[in-house]
């Protein structure tokens, strides 16, 4: 399905990342936004609140982030594409109902414009230290999908992609950006609506009485619409295909295994890497989001000096591109992770490298993007 023309501001714009994310959400057909002000994400809510009234969308400024996340789940079950945005402290509060979204299998999009943490940390400065919280922040075992834009243009595009994945896999999807991308103003090209491909929600074609919220032996079931006589039940408790609570180890295994399989069995579809000069590389710099731009001068300088450095930008961070990292670990001398934290996604890379190549973390506590010099030094260390 193509985007609805009324939602798409086709043309060349000069937008910051947060506004671009808002436009991406609107272009994707988001019609319900519940959020709570928090720096540095608030411009997304502001833009949405300004744009929604004339295009049939509802923006609600909630009492807190707990409610924001709960409300977008309710609206999603009501048939709306829904989203919220936040930053670290709010992300912590949203983890509760993010887990409910995973458990109920509810499409929606949650944006985290990361700042420095822990706690209140650095409200106005960037960080990438919520990456492991994104992966594991809610209790229990589950898999997530998380995308990381490196620019306002990608903010626009990946927000649409996030909505599409949330409908395809019937689960909340995370857009993990940061203060730098959020507040960076660049040219953003918004294509014509007919060039924006949207994945629409899949509803059951079965009649009321014959359909369950989670069909037996189906990995991803079509949803049941409310108000149409299906009279279905869903619960955050461990449940069977009927949506009925079943409190035992067998039901738990079945329920959790399937939730995880939705992502694990589709890692290839979800993996999105942009590779440059990797074929002949002896060192590969792996990064995501804004860090994947900051590393470029360092890589260029090293290559000028004849060092064979390649780059991988992870557009999808979760699920982690395990297969590709394992392949590379058998070929290269070293893998370097550059991220604005002390080595969160690095741990996954190191695990997948499994000792078959050296691994380095080029990280810091956040508050600013990397000095390319630190990336260059790490490359030099790696080829010593």
């Amino acid at each position, binding site marked *: 399905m193509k985007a*609805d023309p*009324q939602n798409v501001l086709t043309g060349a714009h000069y937008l910051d990342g947060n506004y671009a994310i808002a436009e991406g959400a609107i272009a994707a*057909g988001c*019609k*319900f936004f*519940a959020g709570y002000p928090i720096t540095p994400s608030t411009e997304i809510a502001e833009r949405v609140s300004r744009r929604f*009234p*004339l*295009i*049939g*969308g*509802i923006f*609600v400024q*909630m*009492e*807190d982030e*707990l*409610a*924001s996340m*709960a*409300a*977008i*789940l*309710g*609206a*999603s*079950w*009501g*048939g*709306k594409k*829904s989203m919220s945005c936040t930053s670290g402290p709010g992300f912590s509060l949203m983890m*509760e*109902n993010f887990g*409910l979204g995973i458990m109920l299998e509810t499409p929606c999009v949650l944006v985290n414009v990361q700042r420095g943490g822990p706690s209140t940390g650095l409200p106005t400065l960037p960080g990438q230290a919520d990456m492991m919280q994104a992966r594991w922040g809610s209790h229990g075992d589950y898999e997530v999908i998380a995308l990381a834009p490196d620019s306002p243009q990608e903010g626009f595009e990946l927000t649409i992609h996030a909505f599409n994945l949330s409908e395809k896999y019937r689960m909340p999807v995370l857009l993990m950006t940061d203060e730098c991308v959020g507040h960076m103003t660049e040219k953003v090209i918004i294509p014509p609506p007919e060039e924006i491909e949207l994945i629409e929600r899949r509803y059951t074609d079965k009649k009321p009485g014959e359909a369950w919220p989670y069909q037996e032996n189906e990995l991803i079931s079509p949803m049941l619409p*409310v*108000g*149409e*006589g*299906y*009279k*279905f*039940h*869903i*619960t*955050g*408790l461990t449940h069977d295909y009927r949506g*009925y*609570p079943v409190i035992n180890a067998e039901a738990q295994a079945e329920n959790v295994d399937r939730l995880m399989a939705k992502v694990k069995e589709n890692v290839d579809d979800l993996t999105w890497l942009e590779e440059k000069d990797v074929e002949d590389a002896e060192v590969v710099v792996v990064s995501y989001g804004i860090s994947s731009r900051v590393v470029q001068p360092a890589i260029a300088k090293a290559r000028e000096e004849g060092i064979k450095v390649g780059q991988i930008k992870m557009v999808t961070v979760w699920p982690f591109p395990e297969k590709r990292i394992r392949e590379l670990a058998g070929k290269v001398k070293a893998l370097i992770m550059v991220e604005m934290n002390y080595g969160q996604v690095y741990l996954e890379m190191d695990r997948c490298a499994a000792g078959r190549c050296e691994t380095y973390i080029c990280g810091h506590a956040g508050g600013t993007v990397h000095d390319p010099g630190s990336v260059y030094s790490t490359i030099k260390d790696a080829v010593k």
Partner: protein
Amino acid sequence: MSVETTKQVSDEHPMEHLLRMDRIPHIWCSTCGLGTTVRALAEALEQLEIDHDKVAVVSGIGCTGRVAGYLKLDSFHTTHGRAVPFAMGLHIARPDMKVIVFSGDGDLVSIGGNHFIHTARRNIDITVICVNNFIYAMTGGQVAPTTPIRARSKTTPYGNYETPFNIPLLAASSGAVYVARWTALHVRRMAMSFAEAISKRGFSLVEVIAPCSTLYARLNKLGTGLSLMKFYHDNSEIRHGADLNDIAIDYQSKIVVGKFLDVEKPTYLDALNHHNAGIFGDKYKPYGGGNGSD
């Protein structure tokens, strides 16, 4: 003979079409007030002659939180305290539906207290049924924000000394347009209030004082569920329109019940549409649940 009688009763349950019979027996203790309250809601839905396809129930966590699982309606068992904002999202997405939150006192006014007052403040058009048994029952009988002073619980073994919430006062002062309280004994009046609350446009609250013989009554040596029902019989006073400041519940004191508030105010969506029409004029299409392109 007794087996046959049981069969006969269950076969003829008049509310079967509104209950998930494939989930019966329920998990509630005998003499719990919840069965009566659920039955009263079913009565109300019958009285209203509304399309049951267009009714959704949302619950949080706790004994009352399990209600959503037994009603044969679109039903959502959510997280602790968050039934109200989930219901708000559902209502805004589908304003043509009746959305009923059915949850307990701890869920609604302790962990969900902030959502409760803000959703009332916005006058979101949902109905909240708060079953108040004065205690956290699902977890084994701990003190609640509704436990009367002096009452014992597992975490106030020497008696409670915190002032409890007066839930009708809380709802009314936060912006609710309909507020009533009954006990589990007042089955017909409760059902009537549920029907009124569901019909009411705006945030409506019905508090139901319900017996918990397993925990509240046992820990306070108040006898059985029947003893509590007798207590309600002897100590409830119907006082419609009572001053909400005068209806706080003390330990084993009189329980003032009735319809306390029934006023008209623009709902959240009324206010939104009215306001935006004033700002944008003809360019604004009133929001009624559609996606704006119809």
